[in-house]
């Protein structure tokens, strides 16, 4: 049996707790009338309240209630709505909450998430003693503006509309049609807000001798629209998001599993440093080499260092390979150092100066190296890369290193490139692999896979 709901207000907690004459009272009663007109299911309705006297409101309704932090009511409302689109989400916030929560007002308007915001605007922070807020009229007297407010009042509707609000209305608690306007706001498919002006009979009204008719006068003096401020329907965020990014999106691209199939010559934790420039695909080349070592049965870690402005400056990757678990992931004394560019040199200069004789340094031949005890092998990396593809210099340099050091087979590197790169890029990198290997004339035997 479906009975009509004749009110969404409960008297289980007694009458509404506001000061005599407080505008929150008629505002909530107007909201109740709107809910009655809509006959919403209370179980699918949630009232989210901000902090302030208006924050006392949610418990007086028979819907779900959510009372959160000051200024953040819109954020909870958005989370609720995005999680359960079937909910009707109504936010009750004061002018105070619009100040501290300003960015959330801008962004819910900009996104057009389907919640309805009712601002109980009485020009001050009532609950804390009547301090001024972002909506206090110019020259208004409040606890914190005793000589008169010298700040301009924020046009809450105008601000939200500038941020993209699709429906905004300004009225007062004395408007007879307020319930109808609230009903209209709730039924709008996107974000809707009502800036509802009221009397604070405890503070703002007595301090400023405010009369009923002054509300509309202030609107006119401030050049704020009384009535419908904007009605610009556009797609609602949640629906649009689901349609664009939803389950119809492309299927997950899973990385292929790596099965060790090659051998290696590594019998202890070995540190390899690659230093080049941003844009040379150092990180990507190092990652491929890391995978090559995994194909060769090794454990590997990779750490990258680059300036926060990613397209410029140095790019340094540190790869550690080991037959066992790798615990300490810093390379204090590199076993191998591959130096590809001037940016890499500038960043790693002091490190290169400190390389011991046990380290082999593969350096781009045009670079002017500082004194170092490392064994230096000069290679025409830039020249050779130009013949293949400028962007393949990382793979090329590492290919030379792999061939020379013989830690694992170049075939493993080829496998990683083929499996993990798109065919067009893999083709280039395989040529780079060949060209890099060709720079080395010795033949290191790599132990076959056990």
């Amino acid at each position, binding site marked *: 049996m479906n009975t009509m709901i004749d009110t969404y207000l409960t008297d289980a907690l007694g009458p509404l707790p506001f*000061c*005599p*004459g*407080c505008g929150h*009272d*008629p505002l909530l009663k107007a909201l109740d009338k709107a809910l009655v007109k809509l006959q919403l299911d209370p179980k699918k309705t949630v009232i989210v309240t901000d902090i302030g006297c208006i924050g006392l409101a949610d418990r007086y309704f028979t819907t779900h209630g959510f009372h959160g932090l000051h200024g953040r009511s819109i954020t909870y409302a958005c989370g609720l709505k995005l999680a359960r689109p079937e909910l009707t989400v109504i936010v009750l916030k004061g002018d105070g909450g619009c100040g501290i929560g300003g960015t959330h007002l801008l962004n819910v308007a900009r996104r057009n998430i389907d919640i309805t915001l009712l601002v109980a605007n009485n020009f001050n922070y009532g609950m804390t003693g009547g301090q001024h807020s972002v909506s206090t009229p110019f020259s208004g007297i409040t606890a914190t503006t005793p000589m008169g407010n010298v700040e301009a009042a924020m046009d809450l509707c105008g601000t939200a509309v500038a941020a993209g609000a699709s429906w905004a209305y300004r009225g007062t608690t*004395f408007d007879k049609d307020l319930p109808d306007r609230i009903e209209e706001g709730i039924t709008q498919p996107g974000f809707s807000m009502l800036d509802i002006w009221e*009397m604070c*009979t405890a503070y703002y*009204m*007595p301090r400023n001798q405010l*009369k*009923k008719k002054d509300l509309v006068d202030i609107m006119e003096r401030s050049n704020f629209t009384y009535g419908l401020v904007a009605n610009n329907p556009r797609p609602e965020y949640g629906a649009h998001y689901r349609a664009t990014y939803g389950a119809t999106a492309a299927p997950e691209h899973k990385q292929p599993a790596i099965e060790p199939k090659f051998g290696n010559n590594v019998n202890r934790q070995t540190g390899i440093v690659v230093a080049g420039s941003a844009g040379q695909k150092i990180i990507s080349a190092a990652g491929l080499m890391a995978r090559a070592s995994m194909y060769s049965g090794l454990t590997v870690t990779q750490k990258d260092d680059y300036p926060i402005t990613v397209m410029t400056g140095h790019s340094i990757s540190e790869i550690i390979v080991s037959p066992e678990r790798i615990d300490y992931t810093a390379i204090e004394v590199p076993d191998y150092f591959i130096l590809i560019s001037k940016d890499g040199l500038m960043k790693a200069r002091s490190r290169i100066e400190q390389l011991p004789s046990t380290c082999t340094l593969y350096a781009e031949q045009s670079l002017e190296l500082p004194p170092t005890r490392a064994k230096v092998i000069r290679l025409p990396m830039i020249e050779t890369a130009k013949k293949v593809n400028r962007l393949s210099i990382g793979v090329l340099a590492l290919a030379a290193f792999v061939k020379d050091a013989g830690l694992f087979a170049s075939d493993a590197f080829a496998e990683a490139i083929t499996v993990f790169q798109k065919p067009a890029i893999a083709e280039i990198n395989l040529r780079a692999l060949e060209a890099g290997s060709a720079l080395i004339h010795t033949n290191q035997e790599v132990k076959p896979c056990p």
Partner: protein
Amino acid sequence: MPLIITDECINCDVCEPECPNEAISKGDEFFIIDPDKCTECVGHYETQQCVEVCPVDCIPPDPDHQETQEELLLKYERLAKAS
């Protein structure tokens, strides 16, 4: 004289229960005082109860119904006898 509620009234409903003579009721636009029932609380209290609680001070004396203290007291007694 009895009191009158002006159009400054914000319909807050605080005065109505305070009136010992039940002279206040909801009007079309705002609350109204029945001049036949208002004794300005003479006979009940020292001060006018509705005026004391009104947050917007919208209950002045009614210029169209001027009565003296004695007339108000007589009205009080008449109303008391009737109830």
